[in-house]
């Protein structure tokens, strides 16, 4: 698999299809698994890590899947390629930055990613566009079943799948749904939503796992508890709460329209105008303005000048590593901001000219 080819595609999670895709960007499930008779990654010697990588790499790339997985060694990859995979959510920051033999196995559609020698020996992940936790679960469960036929996982009847950190023990499952919630942010109701979610033991993080003020108004909602509940029950809890958040976001959008239509129209139009004409653009400002444009398109305030799929693609391609891949050269801060603005002008004007 050539990473430079991936740079010209969008990846599953930003495809902008799937149920409720205007608000629910993507659904993701990951399972943490470890080999039964090996020390956990942080306690394994370099030799043992190589042994683990060798064994799992062989098993993972020979699973009977419609689209076989390709292994990429993260240890020997350039820092730019690592950052590129982090931006596409195909590997974690931890896998990008730790030491020793490690890698990831991917399918061409970027729906399945299996990390080897992360905090746990295996981190199996499935990603879907839109609100599709059940489909994601069916797929990851199948990948896990196939793997389980080939390796013995650390498991106890009492505590379930055993993981390096006790916060993951049991199902080893973290299910998360990524939401775009600009109206709740603008109307300052987002904190209220967070508090309610924390009360029912769900975690809220930003696009790339950061804290409270998420870039681009993207938020990931995920379960915290992994022990004492079945996968089905955990998924049900998340599945039940998401429609409520969608309803709040829609209500907030309706309120904005009712109470400050002019202001809202101005804000989203200016955002698009700035993106189409600025000559220097930071990543942060881009995320902020694209969030407004995305909202404007979803509320039919921008007459479909660009599609949601284009906006999603631009979100990804203006991230530092993607931008450098697309321009084909390493760029420092100022050059990067100029290149980002150039890319935005071209991409959003070109889209503007296209008939819909």
């Amino acid at each position, binding site marked *: 698999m050539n990473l430079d080819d991936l740079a010209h595609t969008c990846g599953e999670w930003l495809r902008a299809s799937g149920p409720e895709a205007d608000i629910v960007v993507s659904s993701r499930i990951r399972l943490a698994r470890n080999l039964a008779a090996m020390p*956990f990654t942080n306690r394994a010697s370099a030799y043992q890590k190589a042994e683990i990588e060798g064994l799992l790499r062989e098993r993972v790339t020979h699973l009977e899947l419609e689209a076989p997985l390709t292994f990429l060694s993260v240890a020997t990859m350039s820092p730019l390629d690592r950052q590129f995979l982090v931006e596409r959510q195909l590997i974690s920051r931890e896998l990008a930055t730790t030491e020793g033999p490690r890698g990831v196995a991917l399918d061409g559609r970027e729906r399945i990613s299996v990390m080897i020698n992360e*905090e746990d020996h295996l981190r199996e992940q499935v990603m879907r566009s839109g609100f599709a936790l059940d489909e994601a679960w069916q797929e990851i469960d199948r990948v896990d079943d196939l793997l389980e036929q080939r390796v013995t996982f650390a498991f106890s009847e009492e*505590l379930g799948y055993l993981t390096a950190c006790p916060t993951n023990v049991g199902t080893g499952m973290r299910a998360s749904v990524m939401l775009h919630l600009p109206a709740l942010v603008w109307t300052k109701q987002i904190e209220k939503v967070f508090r309610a979610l924390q009360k029912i033991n769900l975690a809220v993080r930003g696009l790339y796992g950061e804290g409270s003020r998420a870039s681009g108004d993207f938020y990931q909602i995920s379960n915290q508890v992994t022990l004492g509940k079945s996968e089905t029950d955990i998924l049900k809890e998340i599945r039940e709460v998401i429609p409520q958040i969608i309803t709040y976001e829609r209500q907030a959008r309706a309120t904005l329209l009712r109470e400050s239509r002019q202001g809202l129209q101005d804000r989203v139009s200016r955002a698009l105008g700035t993106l189409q004409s600025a000559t220097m653009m930071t990543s942060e400002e881009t995320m902020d303005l694209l969030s407004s444009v995305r909202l404007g398109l979803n509320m039919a305030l921008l007459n479909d000048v660009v599609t949601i799929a284009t906006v999603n693609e631009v979100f990804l391609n203006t991230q530092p590593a993607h931008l450098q891949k697309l321009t084909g050269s390493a760029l420092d801060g100022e050059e990067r901001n100029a290149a980002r603005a150039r890319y935005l002008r071209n991409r959003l004007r070109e889209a503007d000219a296209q008939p819909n």
Partner: protein
Amino acid sequence: MKCHLCANDATVHLTDATDGQKRTVHLCQACAEQKNLVKQQELNLPAILETLIGQHLGRTDELARLTCPACGIKYMEFRAEGRLGCPHDYTAFRDGLEPLLQRIHRSSQHRGKKPRHRTDEIREVELLELRTRLRQAVEDEQYEEATRLRDVLRSKEATDESG
């Protein structure tokens, strides 16, 4: 600062940190002496510990001595780093992990998916121990012992796969 028990100035300050919860008690010399915490300027350590930490100490002390026989990690290393060393730690550090799991998950019984093959914990611990000894032998440059251990490990793994 005033004494918690009377109006005198506090000169004895005791802080107790348990499970991330910090409690501080401020006392004057007289009250501290009366509580038997201080004897003529000298600290009565056992009495202080008994007052503040209670039974908690005995448990921590016992846990602090624990080492996993399979991977060699110490319980206190786990507490410092937050990561376990191998799957067998869940058995070796059971007493320390049980309250932790209750706090994180409010449960200590798995109710989800199970692998279809049964795992054989005794055999896995044996393999883990062999790996720890092999690694140690290599670090100590005892290559003959390392070669012997590697062969034992290989033959055991081979029977594992055929079984």
